[in-house]
């Protein structure tokens, strides 16, 4: 494998890891606040559709982005209502949301565009264009550094850079701000937050809303950045891989970056090679596809470092029976 190929694979890794990273951070906010969310997939899907649909109609990718975030937020509100206000089962609520998104996107797409549940292809301003960073072109010729800078680091769409910036930002919010302190506390012991005079409901809704926004970005990136338009089920399990990455990352922002890059790399390799020949042993592509899930199960089983979820996670906060 030559240097250029590696750069290409890494480049592809960054692109493929971006939606995973955004969704993973989305899940991080929600789960750190004690609201488990296996509905990342559905929210991404809804956002992917809405962003593509509105971007197509308006011709503006930014309007599309806004609409995508809106759609994702709407599903977040449902999840919030079910799991915070009505103290329902968070897992069941999220399962429902995933199905709702899978069904509604196709239904609406079919009704609006009559193209069998997809949106028309996006062109021009309806898509996120790659951003060329300063000096990328002039540096391209420099050996080693040149390709790394101009091919790998430069030339991604705005959302990629936003996603990467979200990592330190999330770390800072979580560990350096009042909001972060309260957010972490409400996922560990909501009663402590409540008796300290802070609204558990408010915090959890805020977390779920942030989760919605980030899932919205992830979905919009899929439909208007990575691809040019929405197709049925286009998230293709990315929400679940993001969830797996979140567990892999033990609910921490920097680890989340690492986990999603790893899973992105796995996808990039699986995309490019049908079968990988490692000196006689052929690794089938299906194994590469399944690897993120297998790794997550291994982590979950506690064989490699135990992943301890936020202690109050998954349980509605009930004061009075």
């Amino acid at each position, binding site marked *: 494998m030559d240097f250029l*190929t590696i750069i*290409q694979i890494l*480049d592809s890794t960054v692109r493929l890891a971006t939606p995973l990273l955004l969704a993973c951070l989305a899940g991080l906010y929600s789960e750190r606040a004690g609201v488990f969310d296996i509905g990342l997939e559905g929210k991404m899907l809804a956002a992917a559709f809405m962003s593509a649909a509105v971007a197509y109609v308006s011709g503006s990718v930014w309007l599309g982005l806004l609409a995508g975030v809106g759609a994702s937020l709407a599903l977040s509100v449902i999840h919030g209502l079910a799991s915070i206000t009505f103290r329902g089962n968070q897992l069941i609520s999220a399962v429902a949301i995933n199905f709702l998104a899978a069904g509604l996107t196709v239904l609406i797409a079919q009704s609006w565009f009559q193209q069998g549940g997809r949106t028309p*292809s996006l062109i021009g301003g309806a898509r996120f264009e790659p951003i060329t960073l300063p000096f990328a072109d002039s540096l391209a010729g420099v050996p080693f550094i040149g390709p790394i800078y101009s091919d790998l680091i430069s030339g991604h769409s705005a959302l990629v850079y936003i996603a990467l910036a979200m990592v330190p930002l999330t770390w800072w919010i979580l560990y350096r701000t009042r909001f972060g302190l309260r957010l972490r506390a409400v996922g560990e012991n909501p009663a402590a937050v409540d008796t300290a005079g802070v609204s558990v409901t408010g915090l959890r809704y805020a977390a779920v809303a942030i989760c919605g926004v980030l899932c919205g970005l992830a979905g919009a990136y899929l439909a208007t950045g990575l*691809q040019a338009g929405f*197709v*049925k089920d286009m998230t*293709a399990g990315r929400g679940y891989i993001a969830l797996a990455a979140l567990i892999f990352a033990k609910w921490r922002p920097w680890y989340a970056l690492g986990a999603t890059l790893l899973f992105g790399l796995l996808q990039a390799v699986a995309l490019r090679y*049908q079968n990988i020949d490692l000196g006689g042993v052929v690794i089938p592509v299906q194994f590469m596809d399944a690897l993120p899930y297998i790794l997550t199960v291994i982590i979950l089983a506690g064989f490699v470092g135990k992943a301890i979820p936020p202690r109050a996670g998954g349980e509605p906060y009930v004061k009075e029976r």
Partner: protein
Amino acid sequence: AEPALIFDLGGKFDKSFNEAAFAGAQKWAEETGESFREIELQSEAQREQALRRFAESGANPVVMAGFAFGSALEEVAADYPDTKFVIIDMVTPGDNVRSVVFNEHEGSYLVGMMAAQKSASGVVGFVGGMDIPLIRKFACGYVQGVKAVNPDATVIQNMTGTTPAAWGDPVKGGELTKAQIAQGADVVYHAAGGTGVGVLQAAADAGIYGIGVDSNQNYMFPGHVLTSMLKRVDNAVYEAFKDGPELATGFQVMGIANGGIGYAMDEFNADLVTDEMKASVDEAAAKIASGELLVHDYMADSACPVE
């Protein structure tokens, strides 16, 4: 009886294979003013139900686009001896079945020639959908065409996957194309159904040329689709509909000779294809039609003489 058309999983608007089938049906409907029934499959298991449902309700003939219907049709055909079935891309036994197959290798040869002439780098790409003999047949014809023009040219080949999901994965199509471009490809031909949208998109984004397949895809990225290999599925469907319930069953081959295969020229690629290129390709087409030039068919012996 109303004729019926069943689309495969890629969906009616895949801008490719299924869409071509739809166009044929549409043309028939417009010409005759009559209506037809259609359904887009959502899952493997629905194949048989769709066939039966149409046969049951008296639709005739029932046309299905895609080799994957083979085993379902085998099952169903005998149960409805009065209904005529037409299957495209697959040979299926049965007294009431017409099997339509195309000489895709011939068309692929033509666009391969064009790719080799257009390529500045001497490297061209091919992105297939599901890795099955049918798609290798495309690839093999393409390589033969490329090598006929430039024996030193490199052809990078990738298949998207091994399951029907490979027909509808534009992201993967795009990534594969980007990888090929990184390796120097400046013309990429796809035979990947819905996945191909991603291929053409990536080619257009990178400022190189894509080649469409099945339908005329030149319009999708004007100036960036060199041409399209036309597989006249539309004609096959149109004819089946026109023949109606009395259609002749059996084996039908569509190739360059009978207008079933070709390549697309229109206002979108007029500026891309020089007269010279066109002339050489047309010449080859004539030779193939006359039998003077024989393009090797991968499916004949599951092998390709060139790589």
